Every structure is written in C-alpha cells, then in structure tokens.
C-alpha cells in the first residue's frame, strides 16, 4: 500500500449562511495517483481544494499533506505544491515569460526552468505577446506552467479543462498523464465531467452536496457500478421465465424481467435454461450502466 499524500479527516465547512458546504470529508489521495475529484457544480470541490491550499481557514477537521499537519507547516508544504484554482490567475499586462518570472524566484526555481516549462506547455514562441491576448487554452497552459516551475511532487488542479475546446481538453489530459507517468507527480484534479475523469484518473472521489459518496480506485468504481447494474430479459412468456429463474429473484418491469447483476457464465447458463425449457428469448442484455449513469445515480440520491 503506497503512502497517502493528501489526507483530510472529518473536514467540515460552513459558510456564513449556515449551509453546510462540506460534511465530514475524508479524502485520501495515494502517492503517484491521478485522483479525479468528481462532483456536480456547487458540490464543494473548490471549497475542499481551497481548504487544502490554506486559502480558507479550516473550521473543523484536519488536513495532512506529505504526512505533515498543514497549518504549522504551511510554507514548507506549499513549496512542494503546484496549483491552479478556478480560472487562470495570470497578470494580463505581462508576457508569458514575465508571468513565470514573478513566481520563479518565490519558488526558488532556476532561471533556465522558465524555458523548460514554456516548451513543456508549448508556449515558447509567444515572445512579447501579453497574457491578456492569449486564448483561454493558452492561459490555462501558462497557468499549468506556473504550477510546474518548481518540479512539485503534488499538483492540485481545479477544473483545468473548463472552457477548453476538445483539442485543448485532450492536450491537458495528455500533459497530466505524462507528468504522472514520467515525473511521478501525484495529481489531484477536480472535474464535473465524469467521462473526463474516467479517461485520466487512477483514483476517484465523488462528492455531492458536501458529502463524499464514493472513494476508491477506478476499478473499484467500475465494479461498484457493475453491481448496481442488472440483467434485462425479454421472452415470449415472461411469467414462465420468471418461474424458471426463481432462484435469481427476478422482478417484472415494463414487459421484461430484471435480474440482479450476473457474471458472464451465469448469463450463459440462464440463456441455456430458458432455451432448453422452450421459452423464446427476445432479449438478453446486461444493463452495465456506464459510469455516467452510475454517477448520475449516485448524485441523484
């Protein structure tokens, strides 16, 4: 079991209006993972990330990063984190290089690092162009470059693909995966789009209305979702079929039978049973609700 890079314990937060924005969040981001922090808008993703970065004062609960308590070690921890919170934060009147220069010294990165990160995000040809003239995708990439200046072992990205075109989304995803694979960077990335997270994350946390509804590896999520799916069967004689399959606890639903989740072997066995008993099978379909559906299911509860 690898070490945990970020661990929050019973993190709760209430904004002044008395609405509980976060309720007992126990986030566990394993080292070397790409942790997709998933939830609809307003679920509490940004609040959680702001708490982790010390932009919000912790009201109750505890945050440990790199195994250290956050508050007393704030500066030494922040030195090892690259972050991008909400929209890009760049100085519009400065060039790409100057924007990086503002932060380079603060993080103690070497001057040559500026060219390196500019190349990495493909912005080395922007010259004297000011950041305010950049497209949103370029701004987002420059923000990533700022976050990468000091070779941080941990990256925290809040909705990094927001507002990007499909091409930009793919580029961002590839960049995150490459950093994770080649430099071993642990990435905590939030998103409200499940398909996005599915394509890049190794671990997933699903937050909804301030509560963490699911947390685990992508495989865990997949099997959880499989278990929530079922087997749909339509036959010429549903009541006869129901009789035959009594041991599987079938349910009648809109002219078809729904059985709980079955393995492939069991499905083959069910089919054989029906055919051999003379029941014509019209449809035999595993309802493997894809992640999108299970996400909707989870968040609809």
């Amino acid at each position, binding site marked *: 079991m690898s070490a945990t890079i970020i661990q929050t314990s019973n993190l709760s937060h209430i904004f002044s209006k008395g609405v509980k924005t976060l309720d007992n969040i126990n986030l566990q981001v394993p080292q070397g993972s790409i942790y997709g922090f998933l939830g609809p808008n307003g679920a509490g993703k940004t609040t959680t990330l702001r708490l982790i970065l010390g932009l919000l004062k912790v009201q109750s609960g505890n945050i440990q990063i790199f195994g250290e308590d956050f508050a007393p070690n704030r500066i030494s921890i922040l030195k090892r984190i690259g972050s991008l919170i909400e929209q890009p934060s760049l100085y519009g009147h400065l060039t790409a290089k100057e924007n990086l220069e503002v932060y380079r010294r*603060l*993080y103690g990165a070497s001057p040559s690092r500026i060219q390196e990160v500019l190349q990495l995000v493909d912005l080395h040809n922007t010259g004297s162009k000011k950041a305010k003239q950049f497209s949103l995708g370029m701004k987002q990439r420059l923000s990533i470059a700022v976050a990468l200046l000091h070779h941080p072992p941990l990256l925290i990205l809040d909705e990094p693909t927001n507002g990007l075109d499909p091409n930009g989304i793919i580029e961002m995803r590839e960049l995150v995966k490459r950093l994770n694979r080649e430099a071993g960077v642990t990435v905590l990335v939030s998103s409200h789009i499940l398909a996005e997270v599915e394509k890049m994350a190794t671990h997933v946390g699903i937050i909804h209305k301030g509560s963490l509804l699911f947390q685990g590896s992508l495989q865990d999520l997949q099997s959880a979702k499989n278990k929530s799916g079922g087997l749909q069967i339509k036959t010429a004689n549903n009541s006869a079929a129901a009789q035959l399959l009594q041991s599987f606890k079938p349910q009648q639903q809109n002219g078809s039978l729904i059985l709980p989740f079955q393995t492939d072997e069991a499905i083959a066995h069910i089919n054989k049973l029906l055919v051999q008993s003379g029941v014509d099978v019209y449809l035999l379909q595993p309802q493997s609700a894809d992640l999108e559906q299970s996400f909707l299911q989870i968040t609809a509860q």
Partner: protein
Amino acid sequence: MSFSIALQSELLKTRRTASFWLSIAGAALIPLIFSLVYVFNAKEVAPGMEIRAWEQHFLRGWQSLSAFLLPMYIILICALIPQIEFKNNTWKQVFASPQSTAQIYFSKLLTVHLMILLCYLLFTLLMLASGAIADLSSSKFRFFENPIPWKSMLALNLRTYLSVLGIASLQYWLSLRFKNFVAPVGIGLALLIASLIAFGFKWKYIDALPYAHPMLTLESIMKRQTFTLATHEWWAIGFFVLFTLAGFFDLLWRKEKG
C-alpha cells in the same frame, strides 16, 4: 525565502501598469506646466525671482502639488497596486505561494512607497530641469546664478513625504479590503475634501486629520524650511504605525484569502 525576493516579484508585477505611469505623470505634470509658463511668459514671471530663485521655484511647485494633487496621487497609487491582484484574479495564486502573510503585506506596502519615492525623486529632478530650461530660454531668469539649496530641498521632500504617511497607510488598508477600485478611491476623496474644508475653517483638531497633513506641512514650510517636525507630522508617523499594523492584522486574520 527572503523578503527581497518577494519585493522583486512585486516590482516585476508593476511593469507597464497604470501605477507606474501614474507616478511618472504625477511627477511630470507640474514641472511641465512651470516650464511652459517660464518659456512663454518670461516677461511677467521672471521679475521677483532674481534672488532665491530655486527656493521660490520649489515652494511654488509644492504649493501647486500639496493641497490636492499629491493626496489624490497617494489615494490612487495605494489603490492601483493591490488592484493588480484583484483585476487579474491572482490573489489566490499569491496566497497559495510559499510566502508568509507578512511577506505579502509588507512587500506590497514597500512597493507602494517605492512608487511614491520615485514620484518625489522624479518631481525634484524635473523641477530642476524646468529651472534650467527657464534660464536657457530667457536671460531674464537667474537660476544659474543662484546656488541650488540642496539642504532645504531635502527638508521639503522629507517633510512632505512624512505628511502623506497617514493617508498612505489608511488608503493601503482600504485598498486591500475592497475588490472594487471605486470604494477606496471614493472614500479617500470624500475624506480629503472633508479635511480640506476643516482646514479652511481652521478646525482646532486639524492635526488629527491625516488628509489635511500635506496642507499643514505646506503651511509650515512656507514659514521655515528646516528638518524640525511640526506636530501634525508626528501625528502622521503615529497614524502610519497604527494603520499599517491594523491593515496587517486585518489581512492575517481574514478567514478567506484570495
């Protein structure tokens, strides 16, 4: 991480910003007008300036500046420097960088004051240039025959700088509080006008009004240009310490940053 690195980072952010150009324009306006008056109106202006030409020149310069332009410049520059972060939505990135709140607060404060000092220095240099231009353009001026009064110039600069410390510290605090640029500038302008009215009525507690301090210093240096501080200048130093600390703790104890 040292304070000087934080300061370098802050200074870099002011590149090409309005705050930088405002400091230059604020310093250049009066010397430019004076030069035009001297060049095109030598006959009327030159008589009476033969003796102590530089002293008269500089006093007139500060007279034009102190009452309104200087406090207005201070109000604007204090608002513009924090506005760089508000406008670009960069506070969060600043607070998520490995710096202490003290470093962030004081490096920005120092940046504001370096801008003010730049403005003062530039004003003095351009006023000297404006005297030289007058002398070169017309033989009626006697600037070159008069020694440049370095000592009283320094006293003038130092005391007018002290006189804006109260305003600068309060405005800096207000400007860190309000995201909207109009709020600190509006409050500052209202306080300035109220203080000028109080000054006009010779209110007995005028020394305690930071926004009247530049006027009071002007009044005082018309009488004597020495380094001895007037009562209100001590008040200004006191206000500076008070408001600077208040602003700092206000930022330090803020629950939500960036």
